[in-house]
């Protein structure tokens, strides 16, 4: 009797641990399936019958990144990429300033056409300008995980801070399109966007354009995004890179 009970107990605990293993296996399998589906789906174009404007996150960075990005934005239809959210490192004052200049040039273009068409008065024109800026563009700063020359010990703390801040910003803005071209700040943002896709919070398309300064090797950010399949479209500006990384698209120089 006792032996039988013991056997049943044993059997029960064995089956309980089996159930755990079973569930964990299923969970892992589901995650793997979901992640591979997201990667597969990301590589396919969006099939939208009536394209709506998409909220766009634009990652800027000093050292030529911002200039290249604004070059790209100047040929995109800004109406389709609305609202635009610009993000730059907290220590980088110039990039957002340049983005503001770009935005005012966009508004100017709209405004100039409207003013010529309807012969707007100054007051209404100014109003148009102000609401335009407020609605269509936002400018944000993000903590950097590591400044140049910072020690590795303190950078653990700042990295955690930076990731938390990036997560907070991404929860707030949930962009549908991400445009980035290499500054280190775009890596956590792209990873979080991918996580949102997997979990189902928000589907987004990530476009990565490697900087023109990278001729033979990808930057660390670019390499990680390429290898992890986190960029839906990956563009390079030199044919040598395209040969080395066949999934990338060669698009010629942007400058």
């Amino acid at each position, binding site marked *: 009797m006792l032996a039988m009970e013991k056997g049943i107990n044993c059997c029960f605990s064995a089956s309980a641990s089996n159930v755990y293993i079973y569930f964990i296996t299923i969970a892992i399998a589901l995650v793997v399936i979901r992640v591979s589906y997201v990667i597969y789906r990301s590589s396919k*174009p*969006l*099939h*939208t019958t009536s*394209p709506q404007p*998409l909220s766009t996150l634009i990652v800027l960075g*000093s*050292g*030529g990144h911002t*200039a*290249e990005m*604004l*070059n*790209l934005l*100047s*040929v*995109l*239809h800004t109406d*389709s990429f609305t609202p635009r959210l610009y993000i730059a490192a907290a220590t980088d004052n*110039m990039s957002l*300033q*340049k983005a503001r*200049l*770009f935005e*005012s*040039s966009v508004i*100017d*273009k709209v*405004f*100039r056409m409207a*003013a010529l068409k309807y*012969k*707007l*008065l*100054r007051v209404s*024109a*100014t109003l148009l300008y102000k609401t335009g800026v407020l609605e269509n563009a936002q400018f944000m700063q993000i903590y950097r995980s590591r400044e140049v020359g910072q020690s590795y010990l303190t950078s653990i703390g700042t990295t955690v801070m930076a990731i938390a801040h990036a997560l907070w910003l991404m929860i707030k803005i949930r962009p549908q*399109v991400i445009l980035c071209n290499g500054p280190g700040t775009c890596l956590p943002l792209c990873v979080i966007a991918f996580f949102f896709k997997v979990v189902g919070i928000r589907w987004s*398309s990530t*476009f990565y*354009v490697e900087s*023109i*300064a*990278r*001729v*033979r*090797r990808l*930057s660390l950010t670019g390499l990680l995004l390429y290898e992890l399949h986190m960029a*839906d*479209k990956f*563009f390079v*500006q*030199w044919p040598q890179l395209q040969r080395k990384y066949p999934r990338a*698209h060669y*698009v*010629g*120089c*942007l*400058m």
Partner: protein
Amino acid sequence: MGDTHDDMKPKRIVFVTVGTTSFDALVKAVDNTEVKRELFGRGYTHLLIQMGRGSYIPSKSSGEDGCLAVDYFTFSSSIADNLRSASLVISHAGMCHGIYKEIYSGLKIPLGELFQYVDQRVEKKKLRKKGWGTLETEFYRNAGSGSIFETLQLRKPLIVVVNEDLMDNHQSELAEELADRKHLFCASPQTLLHTITNMSLESLIPYHPGDAKPVAKLINQFLGFPDD
């Protein structure tokens, strides 16, 4: 008399720029007597050095006794003007000039004035005369694509000097690639004299600025936006 003498002999300026960083090796290399003699022999009259945060001070010279006139400054708000007036540019390989004041001057003023213009119903022609018509191009030029491309787009002969002291020097990749395509000359501080002695400006091929339209097209296709 002196003025007519100046007119007969036009200024040909060699402009050396190191950006925001310090690049003493480059400043030292151009301050070398043999480099200066070679430049003078090639018909250049002035040497202007933007030395940034460097600590090496080049020797000034007024250039009266049949040699190169040398002048230097640390930073300037009008580096684009320096580039435009130069006959030869010797530059660091970095992507950014870092002299940002001029970026503001491109748009700030016309934007405010614009409202007045429209209010007064000023004709287009007058706006263009005021510089409004060229506003956007002004902005992009002033926003600066980094020194290499800025100089190339101005169609100036350019020698890029790579800073070998920098650890992660991917900037030299770009300079070497553009040198292979004969858009510029690439040197190091040690080989600068050699490069200047052997360069032939006729062999340079003008750089045609690229554009972002292919990227924009692919992005639009991907997202299902109409393309035009």
